[in-house]
């Protein structure tokens, strides 16, 4: 158990306080509502609780039980054993925000390592200590841009090919705000050049995704140039694993890079906790929300690390803060730092390329089937869209009978893509598994 008090200790403590019973400490609580009878289950021992939780976990069919071709913003990757070994260290796990730097150098240096890794990966100047996830990081990019123009530019252009959850979150965050959020009505099959005519002198920010929600990869250089010509900023939401092989947003000239860090050694965990990546140019650092670690020295002349630029934050600025964010995703950022340092220069490129090759093999095989057609026009990374001869729901139900978790049903978020499936292939899928997927789809196509 986790409560230490013996009867004798409780009595001694109450005597020191000058109270007779524990109940006496709650006199300020209105009597008629005090000590309600809660309708909750009885306590369990650790053994019993473990049994119950195991039963619940067994009631699921996970990506360890099924062959997974599902992605759409959360990806099934291998996590090296060393990652979790580090996360389990109580010194990282059970510390809080490093407010007291003298006894928090572990967390502070790990965040500084994380910030360095993310800037290297994205080609940007600075990274914060992380946001909640890819969706909230994308939403915070708007706050940065809005603050940058002191509210004088009120238009934000969202690519319709940005993850639907990110777009929904952005709308929730900005409901009732003076911002005009537009762009989602554009043709999803068009490339980034379709966004360019919308950019004007009232545009604060353009948000695109890379690879986009459909897996397509574009060179955004022309888009960034067009935006900059109008004085607008560009934010690119990335899959960081793809950046193991792809040109960086920094090379395109992007002003802000956000992203979902989950592919970097974070378990799927039914949707969270994940990792919101947020990086930008040095000139925007004071408009950026979230925690930031900087280098300095201590009074013994040693190099040391500390939370810095805290004057932007809620605990100092209160209602004038850049955001209400208080925490970061500390432990998850640490996981990605361990993952990136272990894979390093060679490993990240290797896994990034393997995903690319396997996805292309799968796409090639599937589009040989009668009734299945590749929808993508542009090059793609490790996800692609297939037009199917049946409803995606029916196909996925059939695949599931063979232990295959099929792709995302695009009709859910894009009515014009009814019967279109977004398939994802990673290093976890062997050629045999891909061939099994193709054979099973062939049965649908021949039925």
């Amino acid at each position, binding site marked *: 158990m986790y409560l230490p008090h013996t009867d004798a200790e409780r009595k001694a403590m109450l005597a020191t306080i000058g109270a007779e019973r524990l109940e006496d400490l709650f006199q300020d609580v209105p009597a008629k509502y005090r000590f309600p009878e809660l309708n909750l289950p009885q306590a369990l021992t650790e053994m019993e609780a473990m049994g119950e939780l195991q039963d619940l976990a067994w009631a699921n069919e996970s990506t360890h039980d099924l062959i997974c071709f599902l992605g759409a913003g959360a990806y099934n990757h291998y996590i090296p054993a060393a990652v979790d070994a580090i996360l389990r260290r109580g*010194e990282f796990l059970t510390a809080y925000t490093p407010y007291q730097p003298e006894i928090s150098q572990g967390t502070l240096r790990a965040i500084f390592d994380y910030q360095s890794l993310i800037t290297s990966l994205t080609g940007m100047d600075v990274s914060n200590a992380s946001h909640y996830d890819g969706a909230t990081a994308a939403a915070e990019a708007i706050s940065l841009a809005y603050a940058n123009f002191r509210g004088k530019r009120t238009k934000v252009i969202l690519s319709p090919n940005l993850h639907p959850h990110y777009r929904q979150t952005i709308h929730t965050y900005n409901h009732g705000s003076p911002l005009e959020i537009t762009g989602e009505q554009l043709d999803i099959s068009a490339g980034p050049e379709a966004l360019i005519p919308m950019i004007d002198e009232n545009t604060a920010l353009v948000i695109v995704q890379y690879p986009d929600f459909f897996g397509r990869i574009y060179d955004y250089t022309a888009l960034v140039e067009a935006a900059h010509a109008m004085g607008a900023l560009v934010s690119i939401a990335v899959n960081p694993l793809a950046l193991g092989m792809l040109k960086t947003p920094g090379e395109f000239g992007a002003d802000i890079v956000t992203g979902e860090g989950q592919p970097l050694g974070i378990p799927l965990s039914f949707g969270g906790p994940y990792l919101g990546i947020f990086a930008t140019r040095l000139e925007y650092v004071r408009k950026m929300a979230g925690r930031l670690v900087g280098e300095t020295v201590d009074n013994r002349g040693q190099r040391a690390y500390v939370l810095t630029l805290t004057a932007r934050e809620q605990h100092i600025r209160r209602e004038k803060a850049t955001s209400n*964010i208080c925490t970061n995703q500390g432990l998850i950022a640490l996981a990605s730092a361990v993952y990136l340092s272990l894979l390093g220069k060679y490993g990240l490129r290797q896994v990034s390329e393997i995903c690319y090759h396997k996805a292309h093999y799968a796409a090639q095989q599937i589009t040989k089937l009668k009734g299945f057609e590749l929808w993508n026009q542009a090059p793609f990374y490790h996800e692609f869209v297939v037009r199917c001869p049946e409803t995606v729901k029916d196909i996925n139900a059939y695949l599931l009978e063979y232990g295959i978790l099929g792709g995302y049903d695009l009709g859910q978020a894009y009515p014009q893509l009814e019967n279109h499936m977004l398939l994802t292939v990673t290093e976890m899928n062997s050629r045999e598994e891909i061939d099994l997927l193709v054979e099973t789809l062939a049965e649908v196509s021949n039925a």
Partner: protein
Amino acid sequence: MLEPLLCDLSVPGRVGFRFPEPDVPLAEIPENLVRQNLPLPELYEVDVVRHFTRLSQLNHSIDTGFYPLGSCTMKYNPKLNEETARLPGFAHLHPMQPIETVQGSLALMYELQEWLKEIGGFAGVTLQPAAGAQGELTGILLIRAYFEARGETQRVKILVPDSAHGTNPATSAMSGMHVIELKSDDRGNVDLQALKAECDETLAGLMLTNPNTLGLFDENVEEVIRMVHEAGGLVYGDGANMNALLGIVRPGDLGFDVLHYNLHKTFSTPHGGGGPGSGPVGVAAHLVDFLPAPVVTILEAGDEGMELPPLYGLESPPKSIGRVKSFHGHFGMMVRAYTYMRVYGKEGLRKVSEYAVLNANYLLARLRAHYHVPYDRVCMHEFVAEGRWPDAPDIHALDISKRLMDYGFHPPTNYFPLIVHESLMIEPTETESKQVLDEFAEAMIKIASEAHSEPELLKNAPQITPVGRLDEVKAAKELVLCCAVGAYNR
């Protein structure tokens, strides 16, 4: 020599991890989209494991010592929770899987929603918010949506007591509301006169932390809530201090309309060096329809006789404010909180709060003679002392905190709440023993004495920590926020 950074350790040509070679034919790669340089570290596994292990040893943590950081509820994080969250059926579950394949997780989320409703006295709960601050944002967006639906769009004023956490005013401002600060009275309660003056037709709501950040249960809480309701406003509860209330009182019974819970405080999920948190939100009946999408519901009832479980699913409430993040929230933290609640059960959860309050009052009783406590009455799970003495004018709360490190303790929260000068906000939590509290009290008493007899001991503290006091001005002026680009591959 302290552990260097990753960029100092990298050795060109070293490889840490290999994947199997591709078993498919290689596809053509569009050269114009390929990056030439990938400036990441070159290390092998031993480098990486030693680096991060040595870093970890530079931290103070709950697992290594007492951590009485006020308003953060640094209680012990049970190891069992770490095991259950890593069960493969949970850890390797994709959020977009068909619902028939995720019934175990949905059942867990459904039960957790039910239990949080029961503990808080609410009609609905969303598990989606990622942290307390996002729970606050959700709560304020709910209040705004409620008034919009009623056509009362003139209600844009949110009252925030001066004792409130900084996230409260920041959240309200972020939601486009006007923030008005309310002062506290001399017993640490909301000042009723000040409140009355703001109760008009523009009032949207009050954000109330109860117990407040002084660790005090507002003696007029029913009156405060009644006044806000009579003016047509709603009351938001900041549940950061729920660790004092489990089985003691249900905020919903007191009339709170919305409240966020912190699973990482009250329900023992680890703080992880600053996150991930989890901030579910409970609401009264009139706000249920506005909850963020999705919530977990029962699509088809089960049959106990047939041993048939219900079919759980995800639903969007009819007037939902929308989605506040990707997917379904921090599911991994929900598994930990569920496990915690399962182990304690209903009797145990009341004990959690009773002993949290006992421990705080015990420390208060032991320190009262040595530190001034400006709002001195029976406290809840924490209390605020002053870190200053008239006869030791050079000593600040900060010095006391740094000196505590030399005695092996994490300091209390400093300089918050803002309404107490040189504040030391002390929250021991229920998982600390009398022995630990006594050791801490002895250290605090000794420091009070040192402050008068040998103040340089405080001024020069800490001495035994890996680094001494830092030059924070230099950090902010000469911004160095990452290793130089290319530093890994020199």
